[in-house]
């Protein structure tokens, strides 16, 4: 029993992100058609580079929310197919989780652990899923997924050795809001 099949499936949906302003680097995860979600602190300008299937492509930053630490990107030529998403509010403490990221610049690195706490609040009222999993700075913006490979959050920071991820329902809300603003005529 191991994580390799689930990890491989998830790795295909992860893109490496390089900020064009030269700072920040991390990952992003395909989220709905043609779009990639990452951490706001990974992209600091309006443009970034997304490495999709080994090929660097320019990407437009459609929205950026420093409080929730989220950014929405549209890479030129589209994004990989998006993986299934699970509402993180259904997570239980102790469930197995895995993270994909690019710690120390190694893309596609996998880490495994468990859900440490299903709901913790940050100082600005932000909500986190906390995982007992060993992450490093390059994991920022990468997915946290359950044992079935469904994404439950995006890894944002490390506090006291624990990984804090933005919950999937917060991401959905952010993406909905960003799309409403970007394409008002398409709003449902």
């Amino acid at each position, binding site marked *: 029993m191991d994580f390799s099949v689930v990890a491989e499936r998830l790795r295909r949906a992860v893109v490496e992100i390089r900020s064009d302003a030269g700072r920040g680097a991390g990952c992003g995860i395909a989220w709905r058609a043609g779009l990639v979600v990452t951490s706001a602190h990974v992209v600091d300008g309006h443009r970034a580079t997304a490495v999709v299937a080994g090929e660097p492509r320019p990407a437009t930053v459609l929205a950026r929310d420093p409080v929730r630490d989220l950014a929405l990107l549209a890479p030129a030529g589209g994004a990989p197919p998006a993986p299934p998403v699970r509402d993180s509010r259904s997570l*239980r403490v*102790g469930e197995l989780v895995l993270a994909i990221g690019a710690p120390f610049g190694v893309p596609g690195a996998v880490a495994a652990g468990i859900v*440490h*706490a299903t709901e913790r609040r940050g100082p600005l009222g932000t909500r986190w899923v906390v995982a007992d999993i060993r992450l490093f700075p390059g994991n920022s913006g990468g997915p946290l997924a359950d044992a079935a490979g469904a994404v439950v959050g995006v890894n944002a920071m490390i506090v006291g050795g624990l990984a804090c991820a933005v919950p999937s329902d917060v991401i959905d809300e952010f993406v909905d809001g960003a799309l409403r603003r970007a394409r008002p005529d398409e709003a449902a």
Partner: protein
Amino acid sequence: MASTVTPNALLSLSAELADAVERAARSVVAIDARPRIAASGVLWDSTTVIGAEHTIRRETGITVTLPDGRTVGATLVGRDPGTDLAALRLEEPADPPIATTDDPVRPGQLVLAVGRTGPDGPSASLGIVSAVGEGWRTWRGGRIDRFVRLDLAIYYGFSGSPLVDPAGRMLGLNTSALTRGSPVTIPISTIRRVVPQLVGHGGVRRGYLGVSVQAIPLRATGATGLIVLGLEPGGPAERAGLLVGDVITALDGAGLADAEQLRDRLTGERAASPLRLSVMRAGSPVEVTVTPAERRRGR
């Protein structure tokens, strides 16, 4: 292929771990007896909570957050810095007490630490038992039945959390205060031995005889004896008539391998009751009855 990957096996392990956390968390509380972040504790019986002694920083105004979200007052009934165990009495009863297991702990065994630091629900970390060794004495002077070192992440409020197996049964109480680096767990057998003393006497009673001894081999029997090298003036041993040069061969009929064993035998009920020492004095066996004096708490 040596092993086929079945995502279903991962899913069932994941569910099993979450079940274990859920089961144990019903008996895991948060003890608020220090500034800032509360520490974890375990519901031992309907009115007794046990926790890590070093996390009890004040003796009054202690509150306990129960798994159902209630916060109730609690009184410190006993503490033992030596084993880092403390017992609190809840002002209102709570349920259920933690399920425990006496199954031997094995290196490599999958374990979880289940903690609670407030009303926000439990927290957990996953790891393995790293090493299991013989009984040991902590730097604080307490005797722990087995050395159980963990390969597991330490987080805020970790001390006082139960170590549980994938069935959710408690194997010991976790603490980061007894060793540097990786944490250890205090085994169930030590907790069972110490908690009644905390509840009954407010602490672990440790007696002393007022002797300095050294282990020497006894030529006649091949066993070990403890030769008396010094006597505390007015101490229990001197008052009982023990002399420098006496060789202690047994305590209440049981042999002694070293000074450590003598010290261990002077805890609990024996700390203040008369003991029979078998002594070799100038080649002849003598029996000496001595009543240990009780060490002051914290010594």
